[in-house]
């Protein structure tokens, strides 16, 4: 009897963990980027400040290029800007070290990050990162004293 109870409880526990895991996985997979493709602002700032380090190509796909040496594309939600971005990166090797950022708003309401990430994926780029600016470019970059465009 005791054995049966243990088996039933174990099955319930297994079902609970399986459901939870499924939910978490579903949440992560709802975005076109993976956790590994998110780049910490401190890491990018460190690279930019180290002039001897290999520099990535940093593209701003938001309203304005704030980060030092970044290339302004314009808001990726605008089809002409996305087309321009496609033209610019089409010349690059598929393993090019690319970083994109917007920073207008938190990711959940940002209209620009998804079209840009999807384009990079469609074009089969293998080494691109999305700068992790969970709030915006002011709070997560400017206020941190990281290098800005002059």
């Amino acid at each position: 009897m005791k054995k049966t109870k243990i088996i039933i409880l174990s099955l319930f526990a297994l079902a609970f963990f399986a459901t939870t895991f499924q939910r978490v996985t579903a949440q992560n997979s709802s975005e076109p980027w993976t956790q590994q493709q998110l780049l910490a602002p401190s890491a990018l700032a460190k690279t930019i400040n180290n002039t001897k380090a290999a520099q990535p190509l940093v593209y701003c796909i938001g309203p304005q290029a704030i980060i030092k040496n970044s290339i302004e594309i314009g808001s990726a939600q605008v089809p002409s800007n996305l087309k321009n971005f496609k033209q610019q990166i089409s010349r690059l090797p598929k393993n090019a070290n690319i970083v994109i950022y917007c920073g207008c708003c938190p990711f959940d309401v940002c209209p620009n990050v998804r079209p840009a990430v999807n384009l990079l994926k469609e074009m089969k780029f293998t080494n691109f990162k999305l700068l992790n600016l969970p709030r915006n470019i002011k709070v997560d970059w400017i206020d941190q004293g990281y290098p800005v465009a002059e």
Partner: protein
Amino acid sequence: MKKLLFIIALFCINIPVIYSQTIGLEIGNRAPDINLPNPKGENIALSAFKGKIVLIDFWASWCPPCVKEQSELVVLYNRYKDAEFTNGKGFEIYGVSLDNKKANWENIIKKAYINWTQVSDLKFWASPVAKTYNIQALPFNVLVDGKGIIIAKDLHDNDLEYFITKLLSGGETKSKN
């Protein structure tokens, strides 16, 4: 003569009291003044609206929740712009845009039928006003009374209108942020 001296002394004593209202971002502080150009390029100061209840609305055309909120503000503005408040006569919105492209800013003003004062230095998140007001996210707003004193911060939707109606009714307004 003694009477005159007494009045002058009284006046001098009160000067620091009158002007010591702390400028800051907390409720009860005097809101820092803003003086930026409107779309026509004419500078308009926040202090020009002294005497009215003013909602300082920080927004941008590139911020989807801000654009969505503009249509709600249109309703609010038309409903209360001529209202009498316990601590101000009339309701005004002072829209401060963190846009960087004038055309985009003007486009939303036109599309959303915004008919209140709009100003911007078109410097995006690098605008000094974003630093002065310690803006952490958009949309953000600050409500000031007729004396320019902050009475509420970051109120949206029903919370904002509820707060305004409390000012109308003459009831005691609790600080809310």
